[in-house]
């Protein structure tokens, strides 16, 4: 009995010792060990926000983000390289020997992406393989990828994103904050290998997906503009060309084409020199200010009419083709004796504009130039907008009096020109050009509504506008330098221009390279669109605005009006 008691008491003491130690452990080390355990168990995962879309004015998705499977490998876990590579290569349709050697080369590494953006069936096949072979050497990860539905369309406006999914150009850059959204976070309990334990609850702060930007662009008009502009630029090997279509009554940019285009998915192609690629990515519509040349004449002429210094019908004594001002010789292409002001525009007479310059004087010229918005950015919401060049009045001299009226001694971006010209297409109001209509949040709520026109100022009285348009600018197309823009069914009005280009090396102007421009509106009675086409440094003798740019503008006008207004009714009695 005593011996049995000893045994049982000893056993009881052993059990109690364990229990006591358990309590001591909790009392002494509990909080410290608990904190340490909590540290190990929790991990924060980032829930990436989906970048917002960019839509055109009609809601077409120009840019969107989609989740695409990506196949990665952990080469350090591969045992039989030839065998594994063959299986994966067959699914991914790549060369098994290539894959094997690439994997072997990285046998010390833990992570290598084999292929991105694979098809869903390929991803599923890889998942099956992984499950079947119980391997962790391969896996599928979902990645967000930017998708440009129309390829290169409007690439200069849309821009592109970098590797870190950051907008680096265009709308992608300007609206990056809104498009990007906010990444969410999930604090999960994880196992010893940092894998999330699904059974246990997470603390989740959901991602806020990016907002969508709605542009004023219309993909159809944009396509037409890019097609016609691109054909001309490549045919004449021009450095670049810009075509802008605007709604003159609102300032909305309906199309903004820059040629040559680039691929937003590959903005710096390997085979291309980075300087060349960077040149290619410049949005010349807003970033390049050039001397406008003769397309500038209507602004000075109409402002002079508006100021009562001249009427549209007043005859000026040209006595060309050359006239000299204080030793400076101004040339016309053709010889004219007398021209009314509308004729000066129609024939693009430099001498006529020179005479007008004398009558207006520098101070008023400067005021006209600024009134049309030149010399300051338009405020369109695109990155990298140039101000253009309008020198301060103090620096103007006698030379300026004849230079400014013919669009020299200053520089303007294509967007500034089309914005100013739109005032001649509506009833004389300068509107701020807009390319963004609004921003919608991820849930469809309106974050920004910029669909309203923003009038800056009235630059001309309506009757002046009508007079300049119906006499001067119509004559340009009907009988003047812009005859190649004539269109069946629609009365086009406009102005040609052949701008000189600074010779950066030798000073003065380049001999044989010009900026061929045509700015126009249509239809005459109630203009629906204004269009600017500028072709920079075309490699051809025939590089005048009327020869090069007007035909392109005509095609764009025809397409756009057909699209907006419907087909032109055939004229009575005429059969083709």
């Amino acid at each position: 009995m005593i011996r049995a008691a000893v045994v049982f008491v000893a056993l009881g003491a052993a059990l109690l010792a364990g229990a006591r130690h358990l309590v001591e452990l909790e009392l002494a080390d509990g909080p410290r060990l608990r904190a340490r355990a909590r540290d190990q168990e929790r991990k924060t995962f980032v829930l990436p926000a989906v970048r917002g879309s960019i839509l055109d004015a009609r809601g077409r998705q120009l840019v969107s983000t989609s989740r695409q499977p990506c196949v990665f490998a952990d080469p350090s876990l591969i045992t039989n390289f030839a065998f594994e590579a063959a299986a994966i290569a067959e699914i991914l349709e790549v060369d098994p020997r290539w894959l094997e050697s690439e994997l072997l080369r990285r046998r010390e590494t833990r992570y290598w992406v084999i292929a991105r953006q694979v098809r869903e069936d390929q991803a599923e096949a890889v998942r099956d393989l992984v499950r079947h072979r119980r391997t962790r050497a391969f896996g599928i990860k979902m990645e967000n990828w930017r998708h440009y539905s129309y390829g290169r369309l409007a690439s200069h406006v849309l821009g592109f994103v970098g590797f870190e999914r950051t907008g680096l150009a265009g709308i992608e850059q300007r609206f990056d904050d809104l498009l990007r959204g906010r990444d969410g976070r999930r604090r999960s309990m994880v196992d010893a290998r940092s894998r999330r334990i699904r059974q246990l609850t997470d603390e989740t702060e959901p991602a806020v997906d990016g907002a969508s930007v709605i542009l004023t662009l219309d993909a159809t008009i944009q396509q037409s503009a890019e097609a016609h502009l691109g054909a001309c630029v490549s045919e004449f090997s021009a450095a670049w060309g810009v075509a802008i279509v605007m709604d003159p009554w609102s300032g909305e940019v309906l199309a903004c084409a820059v040629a040559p285009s680039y691929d937003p998915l590959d903005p710096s192609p390997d085979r291309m020199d980075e300087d060349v690629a960077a040149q290619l990515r410049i949005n010349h519509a807003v970033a390049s200010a050039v001397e406008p040349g003769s397309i500038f004449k209507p602004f000075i002429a109409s402002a002079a009419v508006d100021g009562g210094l001249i009427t549209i019908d007043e005859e000026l004594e040209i006595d060309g083709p050359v006239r000299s001002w204080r030793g400076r010789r101004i040339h016309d292409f053709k010889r004219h004796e007398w021209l009314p002001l509308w004729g000066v525009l129609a024939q693009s007479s430099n001498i006529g504009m020179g005479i007008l310059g004398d009558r207006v004087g520098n101070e008023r010229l400067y005021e006209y130039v600024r009134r049309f918005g030149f010399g300051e950015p338009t405020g369109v919401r695109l990155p990298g907008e140039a101000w253009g060049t309008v020198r301060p009045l103090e620096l103007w001299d006698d030379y300026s009096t004849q230079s400014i009226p013919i669009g020299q001694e200053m520089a303007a971006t294509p967007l500034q020109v089309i914005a100013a010209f739109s005032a001649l297409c509506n009833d004389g109001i300068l509107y701020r050009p807009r390319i963004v209509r609004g921003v919608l949040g991820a849930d469809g709520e309106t974050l920004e509504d910029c669909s309203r026109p923003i009038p800056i100022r009235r630059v001309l009285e309506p009757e002046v506008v009508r007079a300049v348009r119906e006499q001067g600018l119509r004559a340009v197309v009907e009988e003047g330098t812009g005859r190649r823009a004539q269109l069946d069914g629609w009365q086009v009005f406009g102005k040609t221009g052949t701008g000189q280009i600074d010779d950066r090396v030798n000073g003065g102007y380049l001999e044989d390279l010009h900026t061929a421009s045509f700015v126009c509106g249509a239809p005459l009675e109630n203009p629906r669109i204004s269009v600017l086409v500028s072709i920079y440094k075309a490699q051809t003798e025939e590089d005048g605005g009327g020869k090069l740019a007007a035909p392109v503008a005509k095609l764009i006008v025809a397409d756009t009006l057909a699209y907006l207004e419907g087909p032109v009714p055939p004229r009575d009695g005429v059969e083709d």
Partner: protein
Amino acid sequence: MDVRPLESLETHRGFDRLVVLLAGLLMVLGTVMVYSATATVDQRAFDLQDILGGRIRQAVFAVLGFLVMVFAAQIDCRIWRWEKPGDGWWAGSLYVAAVVLLVALFLPGIGEERMGATRSLRLPGGLSFQPGEFAKVALVIWTAAVLCQPWRDMRRVVRGYGYVLVTGGLLVGLVGVEDFGTGALLGVVLVGMLFVSGAVWWHLLLTGFAGAAVGGFLIWLKPYRFQRLMTWFSDQPDVEGAGYQILQSQMAIASGGWWGRGLGAGVRKYGYLPQDNNDFIFAIVCEEIGVIGGLAVVTMFLLLLMRGWWIATRSGSPFCRLIAVGVTMTICLQAAFNVAVVTNLVPTKGISLPFVSAGGSGVLFLGLAAGMLASTARTVPLPAETADE
């Protein structure tokens, strides 16, 4: 076979329901905890495939173990007695079977090696069998049977003490080669039973020295044992290697706090704590139902111990007293040792928590042992009859 006369099997009362209840509760806890501890990160909430494929196994074994326990409790355990020459069929064949099974471990192709130790025999159907668990029951029965033989004189060496020590020691040694912890446990049980049956002090002392020598030899046999011992003695445990497990065990206990994270809500079982469903299940118990839950488990073993004491001191049969002592020792010593290992009171040894840890052999043979303990209670006279004895 000789069927015992009815009057010798005459009982004063039925089997002990408290023992069955306590062991049954522990089995239920084991089923739940093993189910919880075998959870994996990528499983779905309810996956029939997953459950039938393994996680439900412990429940099946627990049910079988419970049935074995109830069955054993129904049978008078005195059938194992060897009090007359020629009586020894049951106990003798049990002993021989245990020796044969333990020897079979060393035969190539039959033994199954896991983590450097061969402790189980491969069975068809993906099952395995641990002779060590069987040896626990066999040792208790054999020792009790031999000690109760009237011709044994415990004061004599060859015919008495030595015979029991050597025959029992053979089992202990065979177990100890591959499973030091269980071997040591069985050695203590053997010595304990010898001690209770009146062994001479200096015999026991000598046995103690011999046991220490054998133990030292067995530690020398497997280097990892020495390493674990060193880990335990070290002030700054090696967190990467052998000390990792014990640190993780303590973190699991601590992360449950007093009241635990809730059943199934533990995290340390997801790859942090090795051996989380068998040797270290007590840590998971503490994590999920708290230190309070752990204390409750210890309390259940204490109750079992007290019930064993109650039977051992009141039973009218010397054989049953020894069985009660042996079984209670086996279960409670194992439990005490396991709790001590998990809380880092003693060096890490592969000892499972009775009835709770995963493993079929363990729950079946401990169920058998608990059934025998419950059965011995029938030899405890009812209060009215106590006066007669």
